[in-house]
């Protein structure tokens, strides 16, 4: 009993500490991010004035860094909602300390991704035309709908499990934080007192949200791929594209979750809750997706390469041997094979190994998004010399600002909202005490092991 109450106290301390104390380094970090964002805003201001001429995109390679970054962000947004929904549905109990983070990554990544479509528009001032004149036939409109729906859904899905925590903070932090914050907590707690009826309602609301969010998440990355797949460009003319993009999205989403978890675990001392096993389980999932990705690559390139239709030969040359070979092989070997090996081999399958693998996966997936966009456009359509494209400083600056915004929003989030789902962690702890089998929770081991085959 005593042990339990001290465990409770420690949990409460861990949850509230980041909300109460802020170090100097934190402010420096925020300042740094603001500088990067400010620089990006400055670059974007120039772009608004002069037009997209400040980028290196031109008629023949008419999409570049912005669109690849958009695709990448939408991809990592699958970190959260999808992964956490999968884990909830399969009732993997080890999920409890990580779902909150995962869900937040989703919301932030989606917002950052959406910015990049807007940045890429030639006429930002006509953004509203999409609503005024939107045509259902256009993949761009599918995208706008899918992304906004997913964003709305993800916010709901982030919010629902946070309600009891908000009530908890409202009660525990009274008098310890500023009034506006308490007001925020009590508004967001929507009158939660934790009685049975409320718990039942929350439970069913979460189940509904979870079941809805899964197909939405899958549809989002599918229609993102269809922006490319619905054109007559040879390298994009692939039926596997939707599934391939969804797999890639979950893959890079897991990697991002691992990286963010590792950083926050270190900073906010979450070692007691987020164990090496969490990294390893996520690593298993990542490994499974690495295999799926390798399979998709082989399937796609073999079916087109075997027949070698017009344009495919050029595409293969630029991808495997010439201009983009460095990108491709980095992605294939560094982003897929290496992480797969790290996870397969028992002596690298530990926290650091998985973290390194995750960094490679994210880098590889970013590179993949980039070369899919650029090489797809580069295959000549008519007898002309193939174009070249290397992003300008404006494009790089805005991209950096996008990543800084991602980091900034997460940094701010952990200062306002609890980093872990307090009540779920607590509930899980109680359950494991009750079942008197504290070591590995039952549902945990079976599921990822199945996925890693």
């Amino acid at each position: 009993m005593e042990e339990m109450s001290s465990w409770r106290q420690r949990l409460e301390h861990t949850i509230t500490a980041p909300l109460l104390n802020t170090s100097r380094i934190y402010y420096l970090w925020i300042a740094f991010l603001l500088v990067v964002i400010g620089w990006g805003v400055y670059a974007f201001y120039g772009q608004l004035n002069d037009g997209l001429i400040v980028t290196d995109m031109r008629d023949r390679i008419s999409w570049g860094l912005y669109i690849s970054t958009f695709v990448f962000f939408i991809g990592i947004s699958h970190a959260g909602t999808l992964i956490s929904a999968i884990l909830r549905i399969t009732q993997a109990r080890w999920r409890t300390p990580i779902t909150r983070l995962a869900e937040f990554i989703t919301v932030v990544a989606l917002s950052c991704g959406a910015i990049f479509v807007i940045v890429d528009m030639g006429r930002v001032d006509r953004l509203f035309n999409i609503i005024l004149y939107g045509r259902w036939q256009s993949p761009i409109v599918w995208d706008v709908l899918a992304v906004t729906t997913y964003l709305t859904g993800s916010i709901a899905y982030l919010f629902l499990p946070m309600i009891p925590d908000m009530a908890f903070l409202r009660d525990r932090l009274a008098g310890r934080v500023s009034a506006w914050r308490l007001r925020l907590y009590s508004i967001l707690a929507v009158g939660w007192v934790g009685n049975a009826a409320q718990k039942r309602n929350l439970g069913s609301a979460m189940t509904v949200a979870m079941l809805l969010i899964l197909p939405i998440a899958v549809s989002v990355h599918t229609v993102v791929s269809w922006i490319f797949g619905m054109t007559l460009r040879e390298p994009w003319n692939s039926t596997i594209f939707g599934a391939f993009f969804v797999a890639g999205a979950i893959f890079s989403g897991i990697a991002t979750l691992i990286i963010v978890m590792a950083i926050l675990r270190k900073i906010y001392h979450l070692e007691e809750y987020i164990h090496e096993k969490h990294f390893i389980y996520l690593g298993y999932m990542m490994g499974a997706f690495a295999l799926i990705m390798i399979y998709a690559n082989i399937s796609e390139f073999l079916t087109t390469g075997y027949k070698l239709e017009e344009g495919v030969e050029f595409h293969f040359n630029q991808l495997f041997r010439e201009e983009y070979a460095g990108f491709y092989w980095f992605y294939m070997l560094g982003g897929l094979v290496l992480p797969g090996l790290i996870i397969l081999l028992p002596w690298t399958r530990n926290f650091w190994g998985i973290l390194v693998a995750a960094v490679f996966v994210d880098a590889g997936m970013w590179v993949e998004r980039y070369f899919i966009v650029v090489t797809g456009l580069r295959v000549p359509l008519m007898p002309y010399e193939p174009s070249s494209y290397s992003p300008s400083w404006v494009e790089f600056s805005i991209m950096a600002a996008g990543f800084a915004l991602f980091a900034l929003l997460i940094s701010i989030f952990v200062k306002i909202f609890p980093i872990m789902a307090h009540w779920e962690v607590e509930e899980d702890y109680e359950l494991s005490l009750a079942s008197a089998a504290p070591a590995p929770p039952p549902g945990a081991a079976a599921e990822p092991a199945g996925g890693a085959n």
Partner: protein
Amino acid sequence: MKRELKVEKKMMGKNDGGSGASDRDDRPGEPTQPPKVSRRGVLRLFGMAAAGAAPLILLPPVLQKASDAGRVVESQGEPAKGPGGRIRQWTMIIDLRSCDGCQSQGTPPQCTTACVEGHFAPEPMEWIQIFEHELPGGGTQFIPTPCQQCQNPPCVNVCPVAATFSTPEGTVLIDQDRCIGCRICMAACPYDRRFFNWGDPPVPPEALLADYSPEHQVPAKKGTVMKCDFCPDMVRAGTLPFCIQACPNDAIYYGDLEDDVATNGKEIVAASRFLSENQAYRLKEDKGTKPRVYYIPGHGEAVGRDTADEGRLPTEWPWVERVKGAKTWRR
């Protein structure tokens, strides 16, 4: 000659502007719509919002006001009608036997030059571009390539705001007052026929006299897409497009499939016979885009060109030099 033409075209634009304010509703797929946010527009707005577009409508409505999106583009003319009131179906037939890429003239291709001059097409846009294609046994042929005016146009299909649209006359136009510059149409066009105003396009003073219309795209607008418009306002007024008038070898025919007639300015042919008897083909038939531009195979032999004479002079944009501080970009 060219000067006069330009004036004529501008006049056309003006005339259309007077009568055409409501004609814009003729677009297929865009049923009649009063020139403001219509009920349908509002319904759609709600539909989208309900479907989850909440974050979008939260953006300040000021943005909307600032854009000229709500404005209705004037001066898309009444479709041209033939005898019996049938709507004309414009077509272009390019006789490659007569095209030598203007090698014999010692000039850049005259069709491109005339089109560039007539529309003030910003450098480096070649709405009709002469591609040099290698022949199987060595040597080359020249292929003048305007927008193919596809009947199953990938560019129209993907445009999110119907800024690119098919007309009753079977052509494809771009409304630069509506285009949001997303460039998905450029990704979709399999003929590389779309051009983007990456920077502020140079606009000469005389271009400001023209009332803007998607039918001639003057003046050009930053951040929007342009391409060959098939010069419908000119042909409706009884003149051939710039490119056809300028061709020294009379290689390009313009016509009406509905009336089965085509002309290069010198002779008049029955379009269907002309196409069949000369084994006409279309570019990339296998893509299923169903172009309205036909080609008669050849390599300039009718004007004495040898396949081994490779190369043509690069296109120039002399008018751009007249605009102070004009910005151009690479293709």
